[in-house]
């Protein structure tokens, strides 16, 4: 079934078939690899994203987690929110630790899928070397980067994933500077250039698409990479109740293209039928507040960001025809054995 058929079936909403699907969905147990009750901020999209990833990938998995918010808020000793085997070592070595775990399971003849989890800091910056090594050696690992576009665990500093012009504590907006000066690193292209079997972006605003990509990645033998756009209410300065809305605006404006690449080739996109202006996305976040000052510099930065979004839409061919894309909420969870089910 193509993506479009999948969606149209689900969005029709009235046929007897759809009713049956909805009922099925409610009856299907979902594996919970990450339990509630952890210490994430209200509205933390990273917490939701990790739950969705495990829902689709678990339970025969083991996780190597880099230092960062996810690690900290899930494991205040003597409690742990993880229901899968989980190992945190350091900030910059999730790729290498996952490589070792994978090598061990392989040599022991066990079929445990290894997942590496890291923030954008632990992926784009300090952990980049170990990620690159892991991919080059072709370890059978799904590496998931929870992209909240900053170092949130140390108190909202800029990373090389922070978008241009966003304010952070180490790229503040002031009279002389309007936030971060440099472009967000195109990690997806860099990763894909490693002869990568599968690399994709996803968003918490599209959970079904996200789970589908996780299942696709887990099924591939070899390294796979998933970049999940995960709003951080604390760092971005938006209402925690609106994290999903904010994430969706990022996609709808073209700021965050949802795409899939196989061996470097673009094989899937989530089209934007009517792209919204980037200001819709920017104005709901405090980190871009300085761009709405009535100055020529601020206006220039807004134009610049609009141009970046337009460029994304162009290079990935996101403009499409027909109805607006919607994420499906289909019966896409997998039924598997195990005791850790909701």
């Amino acid at each position, binding site marked *: 079934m193509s993506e479009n058929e999948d969606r149209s079936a689900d969005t029709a909403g009235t046929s007897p078939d759809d009713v049956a699907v909805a009922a099925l969905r409610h009856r299907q147990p979902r594996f919970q690899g990450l339990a509630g009750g952890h210490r994430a901020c209200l509205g933390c999209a990273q917490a939701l994203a990790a739950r969705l990833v495990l829902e689709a990938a678990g339970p025969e998995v083991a996780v190597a987690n880099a230092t960062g918010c996810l690690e900290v808020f899930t494991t205040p000793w003597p409690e742990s929110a993880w229901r899968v*085997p989980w190992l945190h070592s*350091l900030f910059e070595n999730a790729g*290498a630790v996952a*490589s070792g775990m994978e090598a061990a*399971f392989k040599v*022991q003849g066990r079929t445990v899928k290894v997942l590496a989890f890291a923030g954008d800091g632990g992926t784009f910056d300090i952990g980049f*070397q170990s990620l690159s*090594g892991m991919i080059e050696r072709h370890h059978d690992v799904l590496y998931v980067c929870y992209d909240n576009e900053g170092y949130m665990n140390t108190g909202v500093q800029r990373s090389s994933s922070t978008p241009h012009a966003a304010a952070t504590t180490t790229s503040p907006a002031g009279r002389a500077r309007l936030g971060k000066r440099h472009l967000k690193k195109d990690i997806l292209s860099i990763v894909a250039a490693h002869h990568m079997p599968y690399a994709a972006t996803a968003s918490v605003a599209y959970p079904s698409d996200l789970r589908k990509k996780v299942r696709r990645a887990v099924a591939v033998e070899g390294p796979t990479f998933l970049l999940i756009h995960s709003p951080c209410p604390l760092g971005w300065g938006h209402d925690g109740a609106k994290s999903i809305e904010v994430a969706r605006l990022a996609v709808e404006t073209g700021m965050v293209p949802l795409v899939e690449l196989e061996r470097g080739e673009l094989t899937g996109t989530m089209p934007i039928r009517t792209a919204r202006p980037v200001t819709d996305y920017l104005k709901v976040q405090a980190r871009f507040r300085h761009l709405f000052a009535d100055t020529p510099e601020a206006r220039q930065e807004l134009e610049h960001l609009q141009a970046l979004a337009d460029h994304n839409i162009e290079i990935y061919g996101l403009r499409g025809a027909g109805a607006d894309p919607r994420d499906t909420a289909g019966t896409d969870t997998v039924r598997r054995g195990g005791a850790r089910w909701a």
Partner: protein
Amino acid sequence: MQQALEGSQAIARAVALCRPQVVSAYPITPQTHIVENIAKLVADGALACEYVSVESEHSAASVVLGAAAAGARAYTASASQGILLMSEVLYNIAGLRIPLVLTCANRALSAPLSIWNDQQDSMAVRDAGWIQLYCADNQEAVDTTIQAFRITQDTELPVMVCMDGFTLTHTLESIELPSQEDVDRFLPPLRFTRALDPARPLSLGTLVSPEWFTEARHSQHGALLAAAADIEAADRDWAALTGRAWGGLLEVDGPEAARIGVLTLGSISGTLADARAAWPDLPPVRLLRLRAFRPFPATALRAACADLDTLVVLERALSPGAGGIVTAEVRAALYGAASAPAVRGFAVGLGGRDVPLETYRRAVEAALAPGGGEFAVLDVELDRLPEADRYPEAGPRTVSPAGSESPP
């Protein structure tokens, strides 16, 4: 079987006899031959394991961390800058209490760049929480490597086997390699009790608040101290199997009547033992060799020093601005003992400087000299330095047979 092998080659063969399941390493002189030899054994089908060739020592240590956490027997090797690049992970491995074995082919640290031997690298990570064993010769390095795999799984603590770079790693010696049957009998399959397993999910490496961190460190300290018994047991059991024992924690050799002791660690001990014959006129000397530096064998050291007047410590590392690392630890261990000897400390053989037989005579002279400083660099050539750098407190003062090397 007795055969002539280069040190590195012998270590590679010893590692293979231990049937590691995951090996990950990054080349650095003088460790390189070890990992090359292991890679060849894997390529030839003589060793069935996952050999993960990584992009840095940080990743090499991280890979074996992950592999051992997943229940595999894991091995890596490094030296010098590689040990320093690994250091963050080395602390992590020990803190997580993950069993694995690392060979450190001891080499000086930069700057200035030196590829030659001293022991500053392993000393730099002495507080990481690893068991550290120092080997006197290649036969001991082979036997200790095999013992290390036993010790690591008995204690669930990582073990670093230290062997002097070049002096041992690149020297051809006649080595008795044990049989596979003997090693299999000595080394039961690894069962890591906290291995990652979806059927029994555990969280390793969690965030710990001040309420708990102290307890974690207390346990780790206790485990290191308790490991002394496992180190001794491994050496004893190995001796029962092969007839070769290496002194457990501290090797003591020399006449009962000796009032002078010379303590060192690593390959210098062989030099000192041989040197005794060259100066039969010197008073009797007890040679002490620290085989285990962590856990530090304080009790055994006190016992071995009970009837000594002076103990000279010769070490191939230096804590700039403080003095001798081993010297300080020896002094601390002897402090308060009923009849502790005076301790004279010397750094010697830094950055690969040759340690000749003559060192023995100088050590004994130092022990006999009245007074004497706290610590000095024994073999410094002061006349190579500009006047301003001839610090009297760092250069040799107590040992100067001709007086020529004394600073002005």
